[in-house]
């Protein structure tokens, strides 16, 4: 080689002073880095904003206002025959219990000497949640001996009054509100001053089932949590192994020909299929053809499995592709079979990608409503499903469904509950992904 190549060499610049070109490159470097940091910051800020709105909006769902009053269980109304015959007792409807609660509250107001101008009977009867009468009825049916006694009852108050203590309802808005009145709120304040009414931590939000539109205060996510749990069980058990197995076959074993190209394109295309179409498929394949029941977590789980598979497959294949061939060669060279080289060496190295696919796929599956719409899981379900495996075939709701339903309801109290359900959903998601996140950290390495 001639010396010509070397003639470009410049007089030695100092390392401490950057030449213009270096300065330009360093500026580009700094910009690039700043973009990266900016991107992370933007994502974080967005996350914080969204979480902030969710949490401020939903934290109220975990607190609820209760009223404690003595209830006189009037035998004349509850057991006309006086023989405590369970069959007769069952004929007494919740409406009657509602009246009893109203009378008891009127009595309590009179006893405590609470006097409020313009307080109507409707204000008094509406103060107590409609849920309370059902609870009281169940209590009496369980123990008919209570009839005739005066018992202490802890009952929910209606959503507006509850909202008053959470800042959602004010005296001004109450004046315009057909479902409450300033007088009712004053009554609540008076009861609160007497220590009968208090806003407390509300476990029942996590354990009770949904409630109808007239009882936002009683609605909970119990069944939705169970339903989501069941579905996620199905998804986890099916989609991760199937997805990983499919990726392994396609990436490591399948001959590279037009046929596998078709499969490859097909799978990425499945990712682009709107989720509701998976609902159409689920309805056709699992319910109409397969004969599985409506509204059942098993069907939801299967549909969500099909929906998550492409995500997991795409992530897994990309991760498998990224493992350097020399590692496969090394294993084959000592007489490992292809299968062994994949399962012993390639798969562990592809683990982070697989776990990421799982995390993202499950996040998607957990939050999806549209496909559930068609297989009957967007539903009002009041009875708890039993434990798996039978419970998988019984009607249940799901967390995103609960959110979707509640955001559509007329009573604004449901909005708070929807946000509360979103908090539960996110906590659920984090718990579910925690293991994956930890595992991923363990498997991450450079080579």
């Amino acid at each position, binding site marked *: 080689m001639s010396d010509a190549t070397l003639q470009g060499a410049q007089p030695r610049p100092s390392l401490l002073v950057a030449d213009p070109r270096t300065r330009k490159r360093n500026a580009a470097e700094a910009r690039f880095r700043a973009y990266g940091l900016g991107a992370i910051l933007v994502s974080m800020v967005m996350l914080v904003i969204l979480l902030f709105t969710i949490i401020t909006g939903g934290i109220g769902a975990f607190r609820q206002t209760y009223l404690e009053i003595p209830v006189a269980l009037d035998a004349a109304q509850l057991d006309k025959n006086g023989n405590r015959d369970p069959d007769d007792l069952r004929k007494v409807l919740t409406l009657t219990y509602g009246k009893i609660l109203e009378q008891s509250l009127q009595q309590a107001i009179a006893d405590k000497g609470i006097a409020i101008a313009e307080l109507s009977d409707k204000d008094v009867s509406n103060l107590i949640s409609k849920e309370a009468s059902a609870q009281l009825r169940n209590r009496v049916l369980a123990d008919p001996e209570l009839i005739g006694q005066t018992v202490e009852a802890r009952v929910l108050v209606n959503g507006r009054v509850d909202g008053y203590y959470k800042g959602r309802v004010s005296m001004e808005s109450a004046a315009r509100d057909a479902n409450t009145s300033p007088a009712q709120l004053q009554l609540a304040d008076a009861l609160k001053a007497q220590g009968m009414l208090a806003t407390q931590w509300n476990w029942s939000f996590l354990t009770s089932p949904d409630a109808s539109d007239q009882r936002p205060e009683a609605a909970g996510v119990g069944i939705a949590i169970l339903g989501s749990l069941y579905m996620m069980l199905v998804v986890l058990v099916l989609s991760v192994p199937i997805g990983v197995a499919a990726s392994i076959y396609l990436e490591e074993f399948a001959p590279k020909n037009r046929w596998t190209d078709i499969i490859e394109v097909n799978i990425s295309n499945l990712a682009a299929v709107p989720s509701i179409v998976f609902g159409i498929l689920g309805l056709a394949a699992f*319910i109409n053809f397969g004969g*599985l029941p*409506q509204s059942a977590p098993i069907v939801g789980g299967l549909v969500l499995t099909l929906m998550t598979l492409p995500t997991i497959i795409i992530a897994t294949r990309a991760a498998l592709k990224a493992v350097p061939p020399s590692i496969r060669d090394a294993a084959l060279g000592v007489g490992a079979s292809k299968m062994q080289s994949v399962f012993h060496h390639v798969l562990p190295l592809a683990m982070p990608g697989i776990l990421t696919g799982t995390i993202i796929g499950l996040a998607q599956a957990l939050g999806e409503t549209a496909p559930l719409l068609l297989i009957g899981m967007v539903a009002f379900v009041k009875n708890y499903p039993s434990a798996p495996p039978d419970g998988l075939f019984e009607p249940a709701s799901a967390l995103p469904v609960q959110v979707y339903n509640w955001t559509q309801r007329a009573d604004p109290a449901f909005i708070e509950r929807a946000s509360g359900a979103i908090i539960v959903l996110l906590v659920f998601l984090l718990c579910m992904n925690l293991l994956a996140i930890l595992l991923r950290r363990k498997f991450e390495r450079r080579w």
Partner: protein
Amino acid sequence: ATARDQIQVSGSSTVLPYSTIVAEAFGENTDFPTPVVESGGSSAGLKKFCEGVGENTIDIANASRPIKDSEIEACKAAGVTEIMEVRIGYDGIVFASDIAGNDFAFTPADWFNALAAEVVVDGKVVPNPHTKWSDIRAELPDQEILAFVPGTKHGTREVFEEKVIAAGCEESGAAEVLKAEKGEDEGEAACMALRTDGKSIDIDGDYTETLARIQSAKNGIGVFGLSFYENNTDKLKVATIAGVTPSTETIAAGEYPVSRPLFFYVKKQHIGTVPGLKEFAEFFVSDELAGPEGPLAAYGLVADPELAATQAAVADEATLAQ
């Protein structure tokens, strides 16, 4: 899997709240399990309903419109031959705007002139030139026209088009001009065509979306169900139509013009196999629930003046004429 012991209901999202109120009360007051009530739209509900007979098909379809003949045919083809139709009451449709805004007293003609794609000005058909309500009628407030109307997926849209826009078209006399100009069919269609320049906004979501949109665009006027309005009277101000304020009473009395009937359909072949099915249907239309004093009315359902006839029909298990 074991035999199904709970009733499966599916269909209209308009009927959904009433259905859940009844289902909940049914579960509380009887020994039957609480029925499972799905939403998903009248059409989807009926489609599932007509999928066939058997354990993994639904028992009841809610609908915010009567079942169509073609659907009955499809049902029959799949073996669903005996369908009971139950009308539960009426859904009132109201116009409401932000509580802090102007008062509105509309006539259907106002709505036609505000939202139609083409209106008649000085006897000529022109693309809708109105930008403010006061352009239409001086008594209306000086406020930008901005309406949130149900999207074309909603049955409410059909009612809105027929009972408000088309009625307004007739009332204002525009119908004659349009029909004269475009012919009978075209003219009728033109009567119901809404403008697409952003003054009339379709809402494919539900009423909560409409409410949210009004709260972020305070000069908007939205179309709501009566029950939704009644739950949000602190945020919304309702407009009168032809001087009548909407309420369950005025609608039941036939004074307020914009309403539609609500139904549910029972698969009679399931009575006897699905426990409590008939009891549920009867419970639904009982006076305690669907009557004017019942919880459904309290929630905003316009009670059916002919409820007694419906009760009798349910008791008799009367099916639709084939």
